[in-house]
């Protein structure tokens, strides 16, 4: 944040006028665009009352949006817990001194990061029953397991990068006072890695929440299926329903991000230090270390 402000001088009188002109021009352009969109939507009757009144009725919320949202949140929460666990386990696995732990852990992480989640969920649901003796996989678990394998793998890389970013002196000191490897990991490295990587972890959790929407492929009744497809079928207002669903996703993810930055501010106030490497400690450290060989720990997804 502080770096943003050093890119330009404090505006003098001429710059102030120029900025004002640009503000007005761009602002008007933006308003014109929004107005054009509004008019076009109006021409196509997208603001027609009958498309939007369903959202004033209890039935729409009680029977479609809220149950869908509950499934979305349930799948997201379970998958978050599992992904974080998976991430820590495989990060430690990849940092192991034994090649027979390190190599398979690496292979698993690399594979699941490279396979589209859509294919994963589809396969777990339809393919796995051919291997496990025909035991059907509930759609919920197909989605949760798919999310866990993918996001867990990305998180594993984030944790691994975070662990490597902790100065070596810390683990040396810990070994020096007689801690075992296991203790060093648990008490020294992982907690610091988790804090340093918090921004990456949080954006991956946002990705996870959004990716629950891919559950439509196995007819998992989440927000997308219930609040858009089924509601659209009932009330013939699929575009309006999709706009409402998008707003809900944005709010959830915005809350999640806000919660994370609150935690981040709190931990920083408590004086936890992460390796400094530039103007902005937490962000910079995270960004610098987030990308080891391979695909890096960047948080991106559907």
């Amino acid at each position, binding site marked *: 944040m502080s770096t943003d402000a050093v890119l330009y001088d404090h505006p003098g009188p001429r710059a102030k006028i120029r900025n004002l002109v640009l503000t007005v021009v761009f602002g008007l352009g933006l308003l014109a665009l929004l107005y054009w969109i509004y008019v076009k939507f109006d021409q*196509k009757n997208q603001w027609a009352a*009958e498309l939007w009144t369903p959202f004033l009725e209890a039935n729409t919320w009680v029977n479609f949006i809220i*149950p869908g949202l509950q499934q979305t949140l349930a799948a997201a929460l379970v998958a978050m817990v599992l992904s974080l666990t998976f991430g820590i386990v495989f990060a430690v696995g990849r940092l192991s001194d034994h090649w027979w732990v390190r190599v*398979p852990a690496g292979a698993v992480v690399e594979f699941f990061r490279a396979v589209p989640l859509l294919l994963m969920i589809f396969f777990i649901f339809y393919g796995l029953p*051919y291997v496990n003796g*025909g035991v059907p996989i509930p759609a919920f678990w197909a989605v949760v397991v798919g999310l866990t394998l993918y996001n867990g793998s990305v998180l594993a890389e984030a944790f691994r990068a975070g662990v490597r970013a902790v100065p070596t002196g810390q683990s040396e000191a810990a070994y020096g006072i007689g801690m075992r490897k296991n203790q060093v990991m648990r008490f020294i490295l992982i907690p610091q890695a988790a804090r340093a990587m918090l921004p990456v972890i949080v954006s991956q959790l946002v990705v996870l929440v959004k990716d629950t929407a891919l559950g439509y492929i196995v*007819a998992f009744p989440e927000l997308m*299926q219930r609040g858009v497809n089924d509601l*659209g079928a*009932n009330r013939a207002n699929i575009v309006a329903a999709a706009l409402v669903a998008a707003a809900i996703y944005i709010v959830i993810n915005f809350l999640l991000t806000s919660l994370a930055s609150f935690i981040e501010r709190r931990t920083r106030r408590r004086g936890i230090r992460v390796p400094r490497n530039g103007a902005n400690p937490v962000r910079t450290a995270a960004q610098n270390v987030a990308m080891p060989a391979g695909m890096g720990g960047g948080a991106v997804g559907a």
Partner: protein
Amino acid sequence: MRVSRMAAVATAAVMALSVAACGGGEDAGSGGGGSGDGVIGKAASGKLIIGVKSDQPGLGLQTGTTYEGFDIEVGKIVAKGLGLDPAKVEWKTTVSANREPFIEQGQVDLVIATYTINDDRKKKVAFAGPYYVAGQDLLVKTDSTITGPEGLDGKKVCSVAGSTPAKRIKEEYPKVALQEFDSYSKCVTALGGGQVDAVTTDDIILAGYAAQAEYAGKFKVVGKPFSSEPYGIGLKKTDTAGCTKINEILKAAVDDGTYKAAWDATLGKGGTPAPTFDASKLSNCPA
């Protein structure tokens, strides 16, 4: 343990490959369907899972916590016939592309979801019925000049990816520009917006949309079906006893009027008379 799981997957893949190489290779892992496993046994144990559509007005529409439509009513008739309280049926949403896997893997016991009987599908599942014979037709805007599939060359037609109607358009009317979505609701929305000129699938599904209050007066069904789509009730391929039993139930339902009542309560609401039911066609159960 991850390693062993990967190994298991790999082994299974090799097995699948070798099964395929040996020819046939049908139904490698769907499990047996002995009598205890069949729908009669399932019903006797007090629970039946029926796969239905959730987004088709008039046929299978999830309105909230409940499902309604003609397919649902047929499901209730079958459940009752099997000696099960229809309230104990668990309804499960299926989409066109996942009906066979659902049955093969036991995710559902029965599928009653605008499910056309055809030879391809008969290789994988058994069909009781047909309980209704639909025909592929076109839904167009009320003022459209399209009168049948012949007039479609160069026109944009929408259907659901992986469905029989989509396949038929691709194979028999290659000059038609086909837009595919994952649900008919999206097709109908695109039709309303003018992005496609027609939506094609079974007449009865289209009629459900045309009759929906929200679309009143906007669309019409062309009314010249160009195929015959016998709707069956899908169940495990090995469950011959269940299949035969369901056929008996259907026949009895026609005789005692419950079939007509089911129609009148759903698709027949608009005044369309119940279809005549031809019991002689109930011959799809595997021998």
